[in-house]
């Protein structure tokens, strides 16, 4: 997933409901007009220095991601509502959810003139999956048969007796990925996964020209793609300063640029970008400083956006905490969930830029259900919370003087809501609770992994591809990669597996909804709210909107 743990990216979110009910001013000033501005004008946009070279399979954070998305076009892409539509794929067929045949359209070219063929995909995927290439998104290929072989490791015991693992792939390519001819790829997955084609729009699955594999490092500095934009020139990426993209005249896909180019200006803090838009020095920013959440609608009337996207925030409960195990533990989890006034926090702390959660996924994905059985436990009810807590205490008393700690990383603008939640717990349950700040995100990850975090932790999930499963499987399945808190329930795992093996998306979504019913009983984590994207823009541009994943649709922005 693209993670964004800095305040720059996290400071801001909100709600589909707001936009629907008209409370939000989402794109109200511009979306209706089709301004006939200069189609060749360059738009300037807020961004930050990408954390990796611009190889699609090595880009796992938002600032590199937005560039890579504009530079490349994959087999599929997502429309503004998060629906996966064919882009370079002529067809993606399967009869069993395990064996896929992909036909690639002919005629598309990279900006260096090389044709985009089935081989451009197969080679790129094998490159990305091979562990010795150390690509950040290599795990996106884990479903394909033969991934185990290219990501094998071996343990080496060093002189100091400590064993370290080193990559030791036993194959260079994945056996399940076969290049049939210039326009046909067959893929065999390790097991049936009905939602697998939905992932193909993610940047890890982009095609690469042959040059990229010869010298990935140089390519990452001056990437050559097949998307709606291309790098303005060699060296268009000025480190710590900006990346300049210009329209790719040969692009034939659906994301046709309505401007002459996009220059991403880098800011380490969202506040100066906001100031620059006020001064018309910058055209658009999608990250607001925390102290502008209350003022952005008045500072930029008709020039602002507040729109939900596929991300959520949760409070995770490690399963090793003795107070939260067994029946008493279940009661405590419920009590805490009901003691948190989500509506008030989203309204007061976030000023309506997030929406109180009603499930474990996001309203921005297909199959979302706001009324999953058992979801009442997310509703604020101080009296019932106190009651449940007392019942739990009767079964096994809460240790006297114990302070419930809520871990958060300080670089993500989390303090305000953590403090508000802690106050909720203090006021409504009569226990001591406080935030446990960490300067480094890595520190929390380490403690979570080592299972030594003394209390709860904040967490969040931003979907890689629009699917209910993506919110459930990687985070809560037994042994899943991001299941740090160690939740495990065989019934839940079984339903997920059945869902993946379903013939239709609707059938799959039914299974996933049933799986959520189990989650509402177990409460492995407490869903808090859904994320939303806020953006403001200058007098010089219009038509600003965001996609299902919260990334602005830069190609649609027009100059006035």
């Amino acid at each position, binding site marked *: 997933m693209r993670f964004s743990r800095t305040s720059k990216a996290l400071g801001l979110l909100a709600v589909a409901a707001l936009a629907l009910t008209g409370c939000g001013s989402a794109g109200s000033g511009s979306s209706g007009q089709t301004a006939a501005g200069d189609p060749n004008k360059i738009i300037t946009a807020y961004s930050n220095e990408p954390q990796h070279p611009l190889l699609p399979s090595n880009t796992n954070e938002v600032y590199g991601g937005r560039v890579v998305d504009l530079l490349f076009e994959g087999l599929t892409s997502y429309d503004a509502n998060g629906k996966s539509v064919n882009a370079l794929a002529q067809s993606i067929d399967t009869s069993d959810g395990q064996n896929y045949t992909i036909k690639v359209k002919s005629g598309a070219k990279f900006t260096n003139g090389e044709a985009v063929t089935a081989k451009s995909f197969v080679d790129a995927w094998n490159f990305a999956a091979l562990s010795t290439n150390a690509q950040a998104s290599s795990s996106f290929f884990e479903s394909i048969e033969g991934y185990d072989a290219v990501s094998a490791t071996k343990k080496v015991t060093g002189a100091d007796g400590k064993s370290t693992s080193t990559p030791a792939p036993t194959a260079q390519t994945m056996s399940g990925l076969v290049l049939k001819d210039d326009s046909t790829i067959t893929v065999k997955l390790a097991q049936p996964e009905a939602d697998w084609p939905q992932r193909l729009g993610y940047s890890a699955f982009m095609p690469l020209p042959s040059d990229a594999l010869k010298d990935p490092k140089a390519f990452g500095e001056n990437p050559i793609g097949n998307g709606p934009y291309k790098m303005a020139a060699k060296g268009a990426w000025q480190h710590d300063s900006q990346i300049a993209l210009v329209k790719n005249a040969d692009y034939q896909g659906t994301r046709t640029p309505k401007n002459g180019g996009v220059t991403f200006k880098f800011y380490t803090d969202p506040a100066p970008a906001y100031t620059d838009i006020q001064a018309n020095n910058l055209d658009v920013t999608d990250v607001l400083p*925390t*102290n*502008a959440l*209350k*003022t952005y609608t008045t500072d930029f009337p008709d020039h602002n956006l507040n729109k939900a996207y596929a991300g959520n925030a949760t409070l995770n409960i490690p399963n090793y905490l003795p107070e939260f195990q067994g029946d008493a533990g279940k009661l405590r989890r419920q009590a805490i969930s009901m003691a948190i*006034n989500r509506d*008030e*926090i989203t309204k*007061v*702390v976030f000023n309506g830029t997030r929406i109180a959660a009603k499930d474990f996924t996001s309203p921005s994905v297909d199959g979302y259900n706001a009324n999953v059985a058992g979801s009442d436990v997310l509703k604020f009810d101080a009296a019932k919370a106190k009651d449940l807590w007392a019942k739990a205490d009767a079964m096994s008393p809460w240790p006297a003087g114990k*302070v419930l700690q809520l871990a958060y*990383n*300080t670089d993500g603008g989390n*303090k*305000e809501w953590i*403090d*508000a939640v*802690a*106050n*909720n717990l*203090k*006021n409504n349950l009569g226990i*001591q609770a*406080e*935030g*446990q*700040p*960490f*300067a*480094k995100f890595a520190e929390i990850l380490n403690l979570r992994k080592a299972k030594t975090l003394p209390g709860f932790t904040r967490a969040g999930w931003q979907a890689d591809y629009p699917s209910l499963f993506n919110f459930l499987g990687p985070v809560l399945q037994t042994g899943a990669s991001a299941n740090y808190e160690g939740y495990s329930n065989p019934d839940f795992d079984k339903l997920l597996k059945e869902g993946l093996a379903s013939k239709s998306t609707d059938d799959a979504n039914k299974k996933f909804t049933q799986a959520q019913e189990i989650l509402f009983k177990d409460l492995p984590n407490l869903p808090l709210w859904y994320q939303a994207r806020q953006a403001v823009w200058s007098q010089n541009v219009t038509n600003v909107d965001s996609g299902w994943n919260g990334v602005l649709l830069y190609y649609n922005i027009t100059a006035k």
Partner: protein
Amino acid sequence: MKSRSDMKSNRQIEHYVAPIDETPLLATDTLKVDAAPLSLWADAWRKLRRRPLFIISALMILLLLVVAFFPGLFTQTPPNDNCQLGDSLAGPSAGHPLGFTFQGCDIYSRVIHGTQASLTVGVVSVIFVLIIGVTLGALAGFFGGWVDTVIARIGDIFFALPLVLGALVVTQLPFFRENKSVFTVVMVIVMLGWPQMARITRGAVIEVRNADFVTAARSLGVSKIGTLVRHVVPNALAPIIVLATMELGVFIVTEATLSFLGIGLPGSIMSWGNDISAAKDTLRTNPEVLMFPATALSITVLSFIMLGDALRDALDPKSRKR
């Protein structure tokens, strides 16, 4: 009427000057060789007592200490419990004279209860920085040579340490990780703050060590250390006092920075610094929330600056000539 000359001529004059035992001069001139001379400090104290600047600043500091150690005398409202989001940023109301913070806590109570931690961080850090910085700086400046080299270069190393790195590492030491307290913060500040003080002291001592009275003291047989302690340092105090009083305020604000980064005080400990950095998020809409803890900080720094000024005046040997 007889003339003066008559009178004079009629008297038999035995002495032109009153006999020494009839005058108070003997007492005046007596040098009590065995009595301790009035020390610089005792002398300063005598002068200080009469200075309004000193009296006012001392009273203010006394008040701050009372607030710090007996916050219950000033407010009954708990600073951190029963904060209701519904009260977020609400203005003053009955029982809440300064209104509410973003989290809906009582501002007045938080400012009162924040005094202890903030004052402790400021004062204790300054004291330790003074002890370490002045000692090392004075030694380096006075002795020069390799003593100076070693101390100055160690100072350079500590100077170059980034605050964030130092703070992150110190707070990870096993001892501090489990007991994050005011003294963790003090430790970080002292570790990275002493070189500045050492350098200012060193500069001032270098300036003074060549003065005539130092040479005089040495030639009268005063030991090197004795000269340094009794003659050099007291004459080098002016910049030290200025730096110390200013740093008091800066250290209190540094605590805020550290807390903001998650390497300062835990949230359960109230401090002005915590509240000042929390007020950052409401700067555009409710700047008054920032004003109260910042004012408390200003008053504290002002008190100590005034005290420092008075102390400096009283200690300045040159001003004694008048």
